[in-house]
């Protein structure tokens, strides 16, 4: 019987190994396809020139710039808001109905599909507030989408600040806010930055919300103001891959665009991890 158990264990463990192997394989295959087909397309020229010949040639400049605008615009709203909200929840909030309500709202915002945010952005920012399909409407929509991510990351960063720091500061006759500003926030900043950077990747990659709030199929120029429509990388890729004038002919451009997106998102993730490790080392010296 013990022999049996041993054999079962062998079988089970090989299955587990295979499952893990399969997951790793998925990652490698996806990365391989995008990178091997995309890297020869990417050049400075590709990044800095306008699409040409009805998007069958040329570069992705306006889409790249549009995505950068969206990142800046949405972070400008979500970052301060998210950090302040996290400070409130971790340092001031007392357990009770209001706090429960806030926590519940954040969890549910985090789980709401991005296309629903798109609908909301369309109804509220584009129509009701009259921003029209625009960089502003899309940025605000994306800001709401990443707000829960930033709040959660900031809360996690605040939790890791030892209670002793707070007590030591308060016991010196320092006010609560000054304790937070001088001791708690400095210690939590690296973690908060990590969370913020991760949400940059999210903003760069989201398509459905901007599709409904102002992304343009094609624009031969950069957005002129916050109220202009814009091109963006993920939507550009979608358009070329599914609705372009000549899907097969633009395949290289599609791979190139996909790779640029991937580089932005994964690069940003690596950067975030590097920052976190750097500060972790510093703290544990």
């Amino acid at each position, binding site marked *: 019987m013990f022999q049996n158990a041993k054999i079962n264990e062998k079988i089970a463990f090989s299955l587990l190994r295979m499952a893990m192997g399969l997951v790793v394989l998925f990652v490698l295959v996806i990365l391989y396809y995008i990178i091997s087909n995309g890297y020869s397309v990417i050049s400075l020229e590709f990044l800095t020139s306008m699409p040409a010949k009805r998007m069958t040639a040329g570069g992705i400049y306006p889409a790249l710039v549009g995505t950068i605008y969206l990142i800046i615009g949405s972070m400008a709203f979500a970052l301060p808001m998210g950090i302040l909200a996290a400070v409130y929840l971790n340092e001031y909030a007392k357990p009770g109905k209001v706090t429960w309500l806030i926590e519940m709202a954040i969890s549910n915002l985090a789980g709401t599909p991005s296309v629903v945010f798109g609908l909301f952005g369309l109804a509220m920012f584009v129509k009701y507030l009259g921003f029209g399909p625009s960089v502003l409407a899309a940025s605000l929509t994306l800001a709401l989408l990443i707000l829960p991510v930033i709040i959660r990351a900031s809360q996690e960063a605040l939790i890791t600040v030892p209670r002793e720091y707070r007590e030591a500061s308060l016991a010196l006759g320092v006010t609560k806010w000054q304790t937070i500003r001088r001791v708690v926030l400095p210690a939590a900043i690296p973690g908060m930055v990590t969370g913020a950077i991760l949400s940059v990747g999210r903003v760069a990659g989201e398509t*459905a919300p901007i599709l409904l709030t102002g992304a343009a199929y094609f624009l031969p120029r950069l957005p002129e103001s916050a109220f202009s429509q814009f091109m963006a990388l993920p939507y550009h890729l979608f358009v070329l891959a599914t609705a372009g004038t000549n899907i097969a002919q633009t395949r290289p451009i599609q791979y190139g665009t996909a790779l640029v997106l991937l580089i932005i998102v994964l690069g940003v993730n690596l950067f975030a991890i590097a920052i976190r490790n750097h500060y972790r080392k510093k703290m544990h010296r």
Partner: protein
Amino acid sequence: MFKRNGMEKGIESLLFISAVAAVLALFLLCIFLFRDGILLFRDYPLSSFLTEKSWYPTSINPRFGLLPLLLGSVIVTVGAIVFAVPLGIAAAIYISELASPRVADILKPFTEILAGIPSVVFGFFGLVVLVPYIQDAFDLRTGQIALTGSIILGIMALPTIISISEDAISSVPRSIKEGSLALGSTKWQTIHKVTVPAALSGISAAVMLGIGRAIGETMTVMMVTGNTAIIPGFPSGLFEPVRTMTATIALEMGEVPQGSDHFHALFAIGSVLFITTFIINIVAGHIKTRYKFKL
């Protein structure tokens, strides 16, 4: 002293307002979503919306039947979960119980790469690689079918399932595992008789969140499932093109006149989607808090 207290209070209020903004955002989201959704039912009865079996939004006698889209979402999601849950849990067990800490430290961020890849890139990959492959493999007219969507969505749900399950499994106290091992159980017996059952509620929360992620995904399914709004058979529907709720909104919103019945119908679909994920979140949260108390 008064000035200092005033400032402290002022700052606390500012922080409070920022936190309450999340509630306000959710509240406004509901208002705007439901308001435009409910307007559909001025002209089109709610009962038809819920029971009508077809979605012909642009014909002269338009029909806005939820069922084909809802079931489209369901079949793609079920396919994804059937595929991703066992795989994800197995990988999570491997990472937390079998892999050496050094290997685990590499595998964790590696699987997280999947979470970072934008859904449009997954959709693109599905379209250019998986769709032709599936078409050939099953000898079909088209590879843009529910199954293709399920596979890609499953891959996308993997990082959520793996990381939360892994957390749950690693947080099972060592003493419990050692207790089992000390009784002469093999490592595998300990894993599937003791460790995994102890982590079960955490794992269920992971599955719920994976479902939430899959059902709300838009771009991927839109690019690989063919987008035909017919009620899918089960399980034969897996091999036919389907249309999900999310894809419908994204596909059609660009072409509808604002304020038309069709426009409002899309908001009604969005409301159904929102309510569905809302319930999933609540359940997942509930499971998660329960398991926290238990350990």
